[in-house]
């Protein structure tokens, strides 16, 4: 559990300090992974299978999210030729 908290904090730090959106995306996967680890450990502790089921769904959603997110990154790169999050201000008002 402590390890999952540590990994989650590292993932958060990765999102905050990196400006490359692909690395930020990897950090999000890191955070998802940490939460999965917490689910498995807690499910093991209380002797329930539900934690594993939730992790199954989280992995599925993460796969879908990765596909869509990488599609967005490709589309962004094609239009703006950058992966630096500071320069991607299309949605800024």
């Amino acid at each position: 559990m402590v390890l999952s908290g540590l990994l989650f904090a590292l993932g958060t730090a990765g999102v905050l300090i990196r400006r490359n959106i692909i690395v930020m995306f990897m950090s999000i996967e890191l955070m998802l992974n940490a939460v999965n680890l917490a689910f498995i450990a807690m499910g093991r502790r209380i002797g329930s299978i539900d934690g594993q089921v939730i992790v199954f769904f989280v992995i599925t959603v993460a796969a879908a999210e990765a596909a869509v997110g990488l599609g967005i990154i490709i589309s962004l790169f094609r239009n703006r030729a950058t992966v630096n999050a500071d320069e991607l201000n299309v949605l800024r008002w």
Partner: protein
Amino acid sequence: MPLWLFLFLAALAVIAALGVILQANTVHCLLGLAINLLTVGIMYIGLGAVTVGFLQIIIYVGAILVLFLFVIWLLNLQAEGFTGYLGLKVLVAIGTAAFAAELALIFLSAPRISKVVAPLSQDSISGLGHALFSDYLIAFEVTSALLLAAIVGAIGLARRVPLSVDETARSGVGGRRLGETEQSPEQTAGGTSVRPRGITGRELDATVN
């Protein structure tokens, strides 16, 4: 899972996670992520969740990371180093340490539900299957719809758009004429094109114009 194995895997996972957020080269970041996911997957197997552990290795390491690698190579990224503000980084380092300590304290002070680890009533895969197809049946079916939507959405996003708004503004009022769609799209996209235009793109151009 013996304690020394857990400590070894935990140290490896933390080092790999540090590698993800500190490496300059994106492919090295991806390698760190692969090691991290592998160690956590082994940890799942050690914790008794054998099915989920193998699923993690197959889906994450086998599929998602290859997708990442494909995109990195497609975009032809160079090592970027650290850009941005130094003050922000110091702040984030302190904040991360505080956040990790807080999470650890919360987890350590959580009430112990049962000291003895209750064994699962069934083995991993059949228990998972029973749970998926009885209690979580609706969620399972919704997941299939989600995956379908994600596939369609990803294809739609990554598809080459016929004529973007920027190009319309740059190339004049009406955009390209129908006859000009025969010319190479790499020239008009300023060298950033990564995929040759397919038949569908040309047809869409025709319909747009």
